[in-house]
């Protein structure tokens, strides 16, 4: 029994494996070199309510945060109710507000010179606080 099987195997022409292995290794190297895991991205939704007309936000009871250029004016680039505040302070405040209402309007006013990063940081804090009604205005 064993003998016949061995003979059968020997009769079959051999499949040349070496080139295939070469190619597979090349592929492997190719993937290792080129593989770069993609970053997980987040989206931060905002409203842009002004379509040309009144670029002024309505005067209701809203939270208003100003984002400015921290290199020019010092501080951390955020001001809340007229005074410069840190991002940690804002986070604490917004978290408390977010606990009882997540639909409260937050108005973010950005100075033209402010960096985009500051706005995104603020939006991140708002997202952490669960606030969803965010509007971005430009000063």
């Amino acid at each position: 029994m064993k003998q016949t099987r061995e003979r059968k195997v020997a009769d079959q022409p051999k499949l040349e494996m070496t080139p295939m292995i070469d190619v597979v290794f090349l592929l492997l190297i190719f993937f290792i070199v080129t593989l770069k895991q993609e970053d997980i991205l987040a989206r931060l939704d905002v409203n842009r309510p002004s379509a040309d007309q009144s670029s002024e936000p309505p005067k209701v009871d809203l939270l208003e945060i100003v984002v400015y250029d921290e290199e020019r004016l010092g501080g951390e680039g955020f001001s809340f109710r007229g005074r410069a505040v840190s991002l940690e302070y804002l986070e604490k405040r917004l978290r408390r507000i977010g606990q009882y209402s997540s639909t409260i309007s937050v108005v973010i006013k950005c100075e033209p010179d402010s960096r985009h990063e500051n706005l995104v940081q603020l939006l991140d804090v708002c997202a952490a606080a669960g606030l969803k009604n965010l509007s971005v205005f430009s000063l």
Partner: protein
Amino acid sequence: MSKRGRHEGEGQIDMTPMIDVVFQLIIFFIVAITMQKQFNPEIELPNAPRGREIIGDNPRTFIVEVNRRGWISIHGAQLTRDKLRQIMIRRYDRYGQFPVLIRGDLNTKHSDIQSVMQICANAGLWKVSFVAIKEKKT
């Protein structure tokens, strides 16, 4: 002619060239697909670890890239703000509301982002989203 149709022995078919071709094809497709997806690599996205994760690919999503100098591009092709305005208005007329994602560099001035948002708002799109990095890999 006389040899036509006559099998020349029953030797095993050589698989190696076929496998080579198949792998070449695979490489071609993988490279082509990743190239298609590539965005402007010089844009450094800001971090937002607690933002909502982008799940899946909505084919209607319109992605505008703004680099640190304020230049805007779509799928790596740079364009003027007038051109973007035209595209936005035409697209809005045809499809109605569609999601807009803005990929802004972290050092971009707000005035440059503002102009893009303004173009969107003028076209009738009052909701935009900013793209940020939730989790950085490598």
